[in-house]
């Protein structure tokens, strides 16, 4: 990330600290893929008003997670402290810090889905989801009149039933 130009204001001393940590070797712990994703996100978003969330989404969209080692570079680009950036990442449920499994099932756990058997689906996932599936709760996908609902590998699915969920999981096995 040596090409990232810091936007210093008046915090010269703390800036110097960032400079050492970002321009130095700690950034090497990012893989080439991660490095590209972070660099692209900074180029695309650093100029926006309230840039931190859009930038983190950009990285997350590319990688499926925000590598903790990217925090110094992001902080440097946005003229924030690393604590600020870490604070934003850790506040929001969407941002993972490690890659998810091959498949991601986000099951809605909110009231409308509970009224239609969402709890049973959650138990089913706990029981039978294979290790290459990341199961995450989500609180409302806006499909409440067609409950229960889930987002499976980015695709919305409504009127989910134990049998349909079983079929989805079997489909995953077929891709293995």
């Amino acid at each position, binding site marked *: 990330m040596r090409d990232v130009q810091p936007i210093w204001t008046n915090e010269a001393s703390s800036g110097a600290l960032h400079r050492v940590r970002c321009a130095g070797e700690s950034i090497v712990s990012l893989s080439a893929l991660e490095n590209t994703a972070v660099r692209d996100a900074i180029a695309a978003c650093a100029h926006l*008003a309230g840039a931190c969330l859009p930038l983190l989404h950009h990285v997350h969209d590319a990688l499926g997670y925000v590598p903790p080692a990217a925090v110094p570079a992001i902080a440097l680009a946005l003229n924030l402290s690393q604590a*600020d950036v870490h*604070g934003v990442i850790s506040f929001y449920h969407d941002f993972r810090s490690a890659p998810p499994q091959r498949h991601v099932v986000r099951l809605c756990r909110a*009231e409308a*889905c509970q009224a239609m058997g969402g709890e049973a689906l959650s138990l089913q996932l706990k029981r039978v989801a294979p290790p290459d599936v990341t199961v995450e709760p989500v609180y409302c996908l*806006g499909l409440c*009149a*067609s*409950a229960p609902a889930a987002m499976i590998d980015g695709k919305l699915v409504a009127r989910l039933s134990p049998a349909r969920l079983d079929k989805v999981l079997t489909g995953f096995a077929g891709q293995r």
Partner: protein
Amino acid sequence: MRVYVPVDAAARAVGADDVATALGSFAAVDVVRTSSRGMFWIEPLVEVDTPAGRVAYGPVATEDVPALIESLRTGAAHPLGHGLIQTHPWLAGQRRLTFARAGLHDPLDLGAYAATGGWRGLKAALQLDGAAIVEEVVRSGLRGRGGAAFPAGIKWRTVLATPADQKYIACNADEGDSGTFADRMVMEGDPYLLIEGMIIAGLAVGADQGFIYIRSEYPDAERVFGEAVRRATSAGFLGPNVLDSGRAFALHLRRGAGAYICGEETAMLESLEGKRGMVRPKPPLPAVAGLFGQPTVINNVLTLAAIPTILDQGGVFYAEFGMGRSRGTLPFQLAGNIKHGGLIEVPFGLTLRQLIYDFGGGTATGRPVRAVQVGGPLGPYLPAAALDTPLDYEAFASAGGMIGHGGIVVFDDTVDMAVMARYAMEFCAIESCGKCTPCRIGSVRGVEVIDRLVAGGPRRDAQLSLLRDLCDTLEQGSLCAMGGMTPYPVRSALQHFPEDFGLPKAPPLPA
């Protein structure tokens, strides 16, 4: 033959894309993807142009398509047929102002939007000065549709009267309440309506920048609305010179990141500024010092989407609908365990019973209704005996309910209300921003106390008074509605369904 298939997320989530592809494989069929009517129990809903109007079929599965095409060719009746959609009682019983275009055309078709009355409100607003626009909104009696029901015109007046070099319009599209999807349907189904409302708000208060905060759980809404902003900008509705008026309005889209609390207006502002979604103390009101410290109009999607109608037809026209101090229409959203769930836009004043039974047809499971939660996860649970209260902000509140964003979640008699009360506390613990102690710690203690209460034992009375005490602390001591209203579902569950907590059964409500 022209057929229409919705492109709404709730239609796609039950296979509308595959149905559209299957229909499109027939050479004689021309498929148009439209917004949804909001009749989700018959999605995917396929409509076919006939000389008498559109005839509807649903729910259509991919394997139904060949037989459907065949019956269309021969004119034979099809078992999935619902007849002329416009005369369907579920639609005919509604008064759709905000959702007048629902199901009609391609949501991104600028020509179709203009041909169905689009931009008329904006053109009317461009003839008025800011104060006159604000007064038109005051006259309409429109109150914030996000849940707090604050009069929109009064809020706009404050922003207009606050001098500043830069003001903002911030649209709250963080529709996190379970049982609600009307904002999503506007953004996916009629995005130019919301854009028009936001521009008018900007003209009214003197803001040339607008932000919309769309939750990440709505990827379709973000995609469609983003494309609508691009098209409206190239067509000259947005940008440095709105419709050659010399007035500017730029619209920026931001995606949330899965935090329910960011639906609270000040937490949303923090999030728009790129920070943790921590609630701000008020005052200062966002109308005085909001986004980036500047005067900001924050309105919900439905509030802003009602604005074009008000400017086009007049505040008086809008105010003619409704009852008491609740004027206009509200798009109610019927969800959960319901036979005919979907979007029901009606004037204020109908009862829950009319919505759940006349429109909704009772529960999906066919079992008796036991509890209804109106107004999202912070709304109280109502027993089946309380369904005759009219849905008006004041009348409903005096009966112990909360209309909120108009979401109605129905539960049948298999629901365990102690589980739902525990969930209310648990949800608050998961979603609390952590700024104030009653909400952050109280919700965690709430889960523990409910667990001990349900487990029974000799100290049950003590646990019960502890829970009541905790609810009071949350209500009185929290900074915002998250902690302040989490007690509502808990207390109402205790009051109406004590037997689920192992306590003596409540006496029946007087008829």
